[in-house]
């Protein structure tokens, strides 16, 4: 197990003695609770509140091999001003892109509140030598990215090399510290059990994550409600025990407003209002935005508008 000399604030104990206190997760009961929360019926002004919040929390994302400067510029403009016909619609939180596209996103968003996030550390698999991963992180930080979304090495995690996973996070954090926010992607769809999700969450937080994030979005199973709830409960436990605030990002498969509202209800009833801010909660998505815009317009006018009235970027 890792014997890292200095642990981030709130984790004064070395990792090993903490392990028995990791706690466990009961899958049946967790899924039941997540399903119960998903039945909350959020209507009218409560819904508008949630949808507006969902936009402000959104990491508008494009992570394709086919991404070009043009595509990223268009997406950035969309993120700054999601609905040109309605000045009340806020900007999204960030634009999330591959490392090579960071400069283009930065150029377009300069002078706005919209941040630029870059995925790094051999996203999405994380299966590259550590030096390559660290170099990539250094590059995106130097390029000026405000946020770094790293992946954990699931191969190391699943073969029990927790210390390696932990050390990598610590080293990435060293590069980011003072320059960029660090989000650690667990890729929960590959972790197999909720116990592993809990363990990986704690490992990431101990390693210095500012945010923990569910998924890369590259798997068929990404952010599910029970997985997100499981991670929120870890964040709650860490906060209760140490006072440290860790953010949460859900990503992958969130395409409809209804899903976004369900995730927000979860946060509201698990961590409370304090986490209902883009500083502490993010939703990574590429196609969610237009559905949210459509729902907001429906709440305002009472009708659904043709999708052609919402820009495709």
């Amino acid at each position, binding site marked *: 197990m890792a014997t890292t000399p200095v642990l981030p604030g709130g984790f004064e104990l070395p990792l090993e003695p903490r392990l028995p206190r990791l*706690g*466990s*997760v*009961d899958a*049946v*009961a*967790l899924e*039941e*609770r997540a399903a*119960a929360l998903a*039945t*909350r*019926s*959020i*209507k*009218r*002004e*409560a*819904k508008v*509140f*949630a949808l507006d*919040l969902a936009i*402000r929390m959104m990491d508008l994302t494009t992570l394709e091999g086919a991404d070009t400067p043009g595509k990223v510029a268009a997406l950035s*403009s969309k993120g*700054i*001003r999601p609905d040109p016909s309605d*000045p009340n619609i*806020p*900007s999204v939180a960030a634009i999330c892109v591959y490392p090579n596209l960071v400069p283009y996103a930065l150029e377009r968003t*300069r*002078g*706005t*509140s919209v941040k630029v996030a870059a995925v790094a550390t051999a996203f999405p698999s994380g299966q590259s030598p550590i030096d390559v991963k660290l170099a990539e992180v250094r590059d995106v930080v130097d390029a000026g990215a405000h946020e770094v979304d790293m992946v954990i090495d699931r191969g190391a995690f699943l073969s029990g090399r927790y210390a390696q996973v932990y050390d990598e996070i610590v080293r990435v954090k060293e590069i980011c510290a003072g320059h960029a926010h660090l989000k650690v992607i667990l890729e929960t769809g590959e972790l197999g059990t909720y116990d592993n999700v809990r363990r990986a969450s704690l490992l990431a937080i101990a390693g210095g994550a500012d945010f923990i994030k569910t998924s890369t979005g590259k798997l068929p199973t990404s952010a599910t409600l029970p997985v997100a709830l499981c991670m929120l*409960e870890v964040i709650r436990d860490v906060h*209760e025990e140490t006072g440290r605030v860790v953010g949460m990002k859900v990503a992958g498969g969130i395409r409809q407003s209804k899903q976004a509202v369900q995730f927000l209800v979860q946060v*509201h*009833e698990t961590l409370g*209002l*304090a986490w*209902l*801010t*883009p*500083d502490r909660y993010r939703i990574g998505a590429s196609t969610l935005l237009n559905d949210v815009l459509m729902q907001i317009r429906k709440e305002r006018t009472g009708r659904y508008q043709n999708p052609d009235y919402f820009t495709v970027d």
Partner: protein
Amino acid sequence: MTKDKREIARRPDKAPMATAWDYAPAPEARDIVKVEERYGLFIGGTFVEPASGERYTTIDPAREEPLAEVAQAGKADVDRAVRAARDAFANGWSNLRPSERAKYLFRIARLLQERSREFAVLESLNGGKPIRESRDVDIPLAAAHFFYYAGWADKLEYAFPNRKPRPVGVAGQIIPWNFPLLMLAWKIAPALAAGNTVVLKPAETTPLSALLFCDVLRQAELPPGVVNIVTGDGRTGAELVSHQGVDKIAFTGSTEVGKAIQRTLAGTGKRLTLELGGKAANIIFDDAPLDQAVEGIVNGIYFNQGHVCCAGSRLLVQESIYETVIAKLKRRMATLRVGDPLDKNTDVGAINSKQQLEKISALVQSGIDEGAQIYQPPCKLPERGYWFVPTVFTNVAQSYRIAQEEIFGPVLSVLTFRTPDEAIEKANNTPYGLSAGVWTEKGSRILAMAKGLRAGVVWANTYNRFDPASPFGGYKESGFGREGGRHGLEPYVVLEDA
């Protein structure tokens, strides 16, 4: 910089943090169900006026508003109902091909599913339970019970190998107010599957879903007299229990009334099953998945306002995690939404009756007087109606009334233990023995605990989970006889040698 960007740049970097996210009211439409102004008694396949001429008003406990006038069945009415049941038993039902009986039960099950929204709304209106529970638990489980026993109707000889099962006759069934339609299903489904006919008395305060069920029976074209519903208070129940024409009594309700029934039936040769009170222990070990255990605690005691005979009303926490669990529990309690039962976001609804509210209040006062520490989350209750804030007592001694008596309300008493043996000893130290919960990651401990606990149902890492295939019933003062599963058929058959 474009014009767009300049405008955006002037906006503050961060929107102010929200101060509240109040969920807008999300009420289920009440007009989906039609409530009649007055109801008669359902005897011989039709509604008839009560010979007693007496009626009373049934209310909505969340608004204290009258819903309907229902009949108070007297001696003559009960007699008429029993005769109708006897007649239907002798002239057709008991000799019907079993597969035909099954068809009726399947039909009833399907109709309950089709009309589930109607039943859910009515159940919440008349009983005060949240629509989320009546919609997701009560009605689906009631339908599931009819489906399950429909399947047994033509397979009874497989339920009792080498024996020849025949029906008992007329069953008199008395049900409580906490799960009106579900308890009706628990009683009627196995009785009919085995070829009996029924006179059922719903609880005084919650007769409406049983009366709406009569319309389902009409739609299913069940032969007249196979099921008869007589409404009324305890006097009607007493008439039914002492009627000579009844072969079997099934009662679910308070231990006090159960004892009285048993005294009445002593020496009469009538069969009896009783499902009575409980004071279940929900036992949390230090290796339990804590956040899920807290959900189990909440579900165990605040589900259906604690009006649950198998409620986990005594929390036994291992001392080493006591403080963590209580902190988590209090935090979770603060998110419980108490209010309008018809609102889809309500977690805890109204107390079923004024009488029950008074009983809960008195027991809670006794807890305070005896020295237990009370905690209630901040909670805004509606002005009208019967309400009680979810409550937890810590610092409770085994000898306090709140640790011994069934409160039947949203009130939890917390005790601690040090070892598994002590947990078993404390859990069993009650006159009741209906249910228990065990929370631990260790499989072998679950099995050992289940063996040591004198309780009819032991849940492991879950609570208040029901399935028609699983038998349910108590030890000691929690009653005898089992409902659900193959065991649930037994009270309704006479077994002869094949």
